[in-house]
């Protein structure tokens, strides 16, 4: 029965109270370990289409009569449009329509960052649209530009109230601690730079708006577009069959969708609005920079007695104040914790969720601080983490937590450090570092799936979800196949179209598999029940002795073994329809993912070059559906993490606030040459017994969380240098090495025997 509940819903570490209808989920979890299809490596079902270039991304769609839009963006970081004249643009060849501030949602007359959208043009070709946009005559009134986050917070220029948290008495605990370490960490602004830029094509057919969009959330787009344009939701159809990466930046429709919709309305033609790479770098969101002023107090025996953090997120002109303090609150068992998190409102481009927003940054600070504490206490870093193991989330039990098991599996990697040190020479210093990972990833209701089983014994999962490149199509097919007892090649997945399936969850917050998977299994179970009911009648057997295995309806005594198609074939061209819903999350429990990375680095102490030589990534995300796809997720997260740890940084002109790194020669993402020679992926692979009929959590984000801290800790192990800033450029590396040298000299001086 459907049940209406008021509950806390978490997406990307953000919580809100919502009403949801949940359906109870009576299915028992499968036994632990690899099953027939689930838990076995499977190449992606759509890999061939993607590899051969047959997959049609939004960027590849060509609708008849389609126009191209270009957007006029503010050259100023903060300015008001005093006057705007679209006429010069409209007079140019090929131009079909032009719109200004207020004429489409997102086009603004007060630009809060350089790159803010102001006006747009639709023309026959993109080149014509670009020329026309340049011809728009704007008179700007330049306003004060605020770029310094500390100054902004001091002046009360914030995106929202500071978020404060305290348990116990931090000041008292610090005063009583045997050892206190204090450090300030800074992380940089990082750009998503998905290979397919943000884009949408809008087409009106009667009063229905068709939106073809590169998105992580088909239903969120449908809802937001309908609400903004004041339309019934069923009059908005959203399609995204293949998408070229999002990483958190494609959760909402944004100006390009509304520009395309409005220009399509005005011209009566389909309109594409696609960001250029330059626009992607200036206007499509980012992982915001942070400043983290942290303190930790501990007893001599390694018990952490106090954690104190002041976090400032450089949110930018819009976005949200991500949970940079989250790891400090949740990772360790500590009675006294105090955090305050400021969100500085700056004249910089908007923050958008980026693969574990807040936790990536906060884990860098906290896990580096832990190693500085370990050094001061002369305690082994792994041992320090174990000594402060959190058994609950501040009193709330975990639905499952196997971090201890992750630590156990980390041991052989951690033990390598003696041998690694021994491979150091005069220039290349080698070391090993580790960092723990905590993040959400439990998903939640509502999510729905249908499953059609045809008379040929083949099934199709139908649900209007999206596959953002994580292998969702394959994982869902595996779940359906496992439950139905069909071979994987007999199960397809249709997704990517709000008109072709039920509501499906967002692909963000590592929630796709834990949200959608249980619904798919429930739909498959519903279909299987019907197969068995039909078979029982056809073969005059009791339902309870029947099962479907490897494509056959079988009886417990082995006397019956008939192909599924012989049973379903009775229906001729008709089909069985199963329907499934995602059940509720466990009440009164924290659903979180855990892991640990052990990283080996080599540092050239003369040139500041850092090489990541080996990464062991051990994760606890419940049941693994597809070990092959899961290892790809982990490798991808590690590599993206290496990018923001070593080479990626968005830079601004400090005077004007204009973005300087607008192209991919200046914004440097890892290439294949930056990949460590060895990345080892291990999964605890134990179903979370309290979480859904699958016991699976998400894996999209966890692997990126601990990377920076583990690398920084390995650098400290190798060289004694404390890096406090990301990226660890040669500049930062050489600074930290110099500082470590000076510190060593000081120590030597102090330790030197006095002259007699």
């Amino acid at each position, binding site marked *: 029965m459907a049940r209406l509940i008021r509950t806390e819903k978490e997406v990307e570490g953000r919580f809100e109270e919502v009403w949801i209808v949940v359906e109870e989920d009576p299915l028992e979890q499968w036994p632990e370990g690899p099953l027939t299809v689930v838990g076995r490596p499977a*190449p992606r079902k759509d*890999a061939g289409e993607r*590899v051969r*270039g047959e997959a*049609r991304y939004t*960027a590849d769609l060509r609708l008849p009569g389609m126009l191209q839009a270009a957007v006029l963006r503010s050259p100023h970081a903060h300015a008001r449009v005093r006057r705007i004249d679209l006429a010069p643009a409209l007079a140019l060849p090929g131009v079909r329509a032009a719109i200004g501030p207020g004429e489409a949602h997102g086009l603004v007359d007060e630009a809060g960052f350089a790159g803010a959208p102001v006006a747009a043009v639709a023309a026959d070709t993109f080149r014509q649209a670009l020329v026309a946009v340049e011809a728009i005559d704007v008179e700007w009134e330049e306003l004060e530009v605020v770029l310094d986050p500390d100054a902004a917070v001091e002046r009360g220029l914030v995106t929202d109230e500071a978020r404060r948290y305290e348990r116990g008495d931090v000041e008292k605990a610090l005063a009583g601690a045997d050892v206190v370490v204090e450090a300030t960490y800074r992380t940089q602004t990082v750009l998503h730079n998905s290979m*397919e830029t943000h884009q949408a094509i809008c087409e009106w057919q009667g009063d229905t708006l068709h939106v073809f969009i590169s998105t992580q959330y088909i239903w969120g787009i449908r809802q937001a577009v309908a609400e903004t344009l004041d339309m019934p939701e069923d009059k908005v159809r959203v399609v995204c069959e293949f998408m*070229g*990466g999002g990483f958190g930046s494609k959760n909402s429709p944004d100006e390009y969708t509304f520009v395309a919709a409005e220009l399509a309305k005005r011209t009566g033609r389909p309109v594409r609005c696609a960001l250029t790479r330059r626009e992607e770098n200036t206007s499509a969101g980012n992982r915001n920079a942070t400043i983290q002023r942290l303190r930790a107090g501990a007893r001599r025996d390694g018990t952490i007695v106090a954690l104190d953090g002041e976090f400032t997120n450089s949110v930018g002109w819009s976005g949200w104040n991500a949970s940079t303090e989250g790891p400090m609150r949740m990772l360790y068992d500590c009675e006294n914790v105090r955090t305050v998190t400021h969100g500085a409102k700056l004249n910089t481009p908007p923050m958008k969720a980026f693969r574990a927003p807040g936790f990536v940054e906060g884990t860098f600070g906290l896990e580096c601080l832990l190693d500085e504490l370990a050094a001061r206490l002369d305690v082994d870093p792994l041992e320090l983490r174990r000594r402060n193991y959190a058994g609950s989330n501040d009193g709330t039990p975990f639905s499952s937590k196997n971090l201890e098991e992750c630590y156990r599996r980390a041991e052989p990697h951690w033990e390598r450090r003696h041998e690694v040190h021994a491979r150091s020479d005069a220039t290349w210093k080698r070391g090993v570092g580790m960092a723990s990972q905590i993040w959400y990833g439990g998903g939640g209701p509502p999510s729905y799936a249908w499953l059609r089983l045809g008379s040929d014994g083949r099934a199709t999962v139908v649900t209007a979800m999206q596959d953002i490149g994580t292998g969702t199509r394959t994982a869902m097919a595996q779940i359906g196949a496992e439950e139905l007892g069909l071979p994987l090649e007999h199960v397809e997945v249709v997704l990517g179209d709000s008109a072709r399936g039920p509501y499906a969850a967002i692909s963000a917050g590592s929630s796709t598999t834990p949200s959608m998977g249980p619904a798919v299994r429930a739909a498959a179970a519903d279909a299987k029940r019907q197969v068995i009911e039909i078979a029982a009648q056809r073969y005059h057997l009791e339902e309870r002795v029947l099962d479907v295995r490897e494509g056959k309806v079988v009886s417990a005594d082995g006397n019956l073994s008939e192909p599924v198609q012989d049973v379903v074939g009775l229906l001729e061209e008709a089909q069985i329809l199963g329907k499934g819903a995602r059940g509720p999350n466990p009440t009164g429990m924290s659903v979180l993912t855990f892991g640990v990375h052990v990283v080996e680095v080599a540092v050239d102490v003369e040139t500041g070059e850092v090489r990541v030589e080996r990464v062991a990534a051990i994760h606890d995300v419940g049941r693994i559906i597809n070990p092959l796809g899961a290892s790809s997720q982990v490798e991808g997260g590690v590599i993206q993490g290496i990018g923001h740890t070593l080479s990626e940084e968005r830079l601004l002109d400090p005077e004007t606030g204009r973005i300087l790194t607008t192209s991919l020669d200046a914004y440097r993402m890892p290439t294949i040459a930056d990949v460590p020679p060895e990345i080892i992926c291990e999964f605890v692979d134990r179903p979370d017994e309290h979480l859904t009929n699958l016991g699976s959590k998400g894996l999209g984000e966890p692997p990126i969380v601990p990377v920076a801290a583990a690398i920084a800790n390995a650098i400290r192990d190798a060289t004694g240098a404390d890096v406090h800033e990301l990226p660890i450029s040669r500049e930062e590396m050489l600074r930290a090495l110099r500082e470590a040298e000076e510190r060593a000299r000081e120590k030597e001086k102090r330790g030197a025997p006095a002259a007699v």
Partner: protein
Amino acid sequence: MSELRLTVNGGEHVLDAPVGTSLAHVLRERLGLTGTKIACNEGHCGACTVQVDGVPRLSCITLAHTVEGEVTTIEGLREHPLVEAFVRADAVQCGYCTPGQVVSAAALVAANPEPTREEIRHAMAGNICRCGTYPKIEEAILSWQG
């Protein structure tokens, strides 16, 4: 407008296009060959890689009128054993860079059927994959002959 003659995947094409039009644009917009992706459109990412006489080039910064030689796009390499190798190795996540990866890899293995990891990294460094599929790409190229 200026006449343009191109040989693409063995087929001859004669069309008109303004001087300055990129090869990538012609492939995608005029010939409907959307397997070649444009991701940066300024020569930095490799998504648009095609072969001209077997040599990988960036079609987004190649002016179509300057092309001399036979163009091979992903559509001309669909039967290449590398495709199956990429599928097997899971060397594809979002897939947007993947056709360009295959085009670069195909040129590599044509010249050097058994490349070392080092040689793969040297030859593939111009194809950016934001999903970080690189270890699987390396594996696919190492095992391309099955």
